[in-house]
């Protein structure tokens, strides 16, 4: 084969493949956290902020790990002040603005925790994205008083805790 043909083939092969592979580091995951388990609770929820700095919309497809029997993606639909929690097949992470998983909204649900979650512990979770692939994270467990940013403090300003 002529060198120019081989060169052109390689060129197109590489650029073609790059369409399927996201540039590394375009999916940022910040502050993955979960609440500590109230007594008797065997379900939990993981929250985080997903930022897509790439050029194409990505999708969180699943979470996996040893922390619970089943891990699913869920959202809350609020209709007339009725909370309806629903499983979703994926969570879209568009470019431009962060996708936030937070209480009352999107979350990764942990069904059948093997151990209750306790404040201060961390546990591993692997997130699988359609484009960005598998990204492992360490989830921090916060105690019930940890997200006390709104609490009025005696010295006049709120303390924001980062565990």
């Amino acid at each position: 084969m002529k060198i120019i043909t081989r060169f052109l083939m390689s060129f197109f092969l590489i650029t073609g493949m790059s369409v399927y592979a996201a540039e590394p580091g375009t999916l940022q995951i910040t502050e993955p956290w979960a609440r500590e388990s109230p007594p008797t609770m065997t379900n939990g929820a993981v929250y985080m902020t997903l930022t897509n700095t790439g050029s194409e919309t990505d999708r969180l497809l699943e979470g996996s790990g040893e922390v619970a029997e089943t891990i699913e993606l869920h959202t809350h639909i609020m209709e007339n002040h009725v909370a309806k929690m629903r499983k979703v097949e994926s969570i879209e992470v568009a470019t431009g603005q962060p996708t936030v998983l937070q209480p009352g909204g999107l979350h990764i649900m942990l069904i059948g925790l093997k151990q209750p979650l306790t404040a201060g512990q961390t546990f591993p979770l692997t997130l699988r994205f359609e484009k960005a692939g598998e990204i492992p994270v360490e989830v921090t467990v916060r105690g019930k008083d940890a997200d006390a940013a709104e609490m009025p403090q005696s010295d006049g300003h709120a303390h924001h805790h980062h565990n």
Partner: protein
Amino acid sequence: MAPRARTLLVAAVAILAFGLGLWLNFGLLPDRVDPPAIAGIFLEPPRSVEDFTLIDQTGQPFTKDRWHGKWTFLYFGYTFCPDVCPLTLLELSKMQKILAQEHLDQNNAYLFISVDPARDTPERLGQYVPYFNPKFQGATGTPEQLAGLAKQFGVYYKIPDAPEGNYTVDHSSTVLLIDPQVRLRAVFTEGQPALMAADFRKILEYDTAH
């Protein structure tokens, strides 16, 4: 009638009418205090709570008599709820602390009613509820009793028809306020602690002004 006499008569009637108007507005009819504007629904007139029987977390019967003489904050949910119920109970707990700081929690009650008695036994409630705040109490009941009570308060919930495994229960996320005369006074639709505390204060002030 002579023109001048008529003018005087008209003037006299006008003055009388004006005087009557002033008297009616400021003297005869009581001052009207506007109902408080809250983030939610303020019930005017209040709605008396009808009889019901629930079971408290110690397994004892629980009737509306327990609500006499105190303000009660009510929330309907279930313990297997991973997100909204812990969130709301934590917000209620923060609200309770704000009220305590403002000396507005002399004798309040805070009650979590589980609409999922199949899984939420009194014993389970007794372990789950105090975690959020030692002042919080739990209760549940038979499906019929729960349905009746929820209907009284306009609270919606739905247990799946064929519940299996880890089923989820849709439910209203509102917080209800019952007064010391055991009447429904308000439905808070926004859970922010400072906002609920402020709305409770407005309702107390409204009651004092009446």
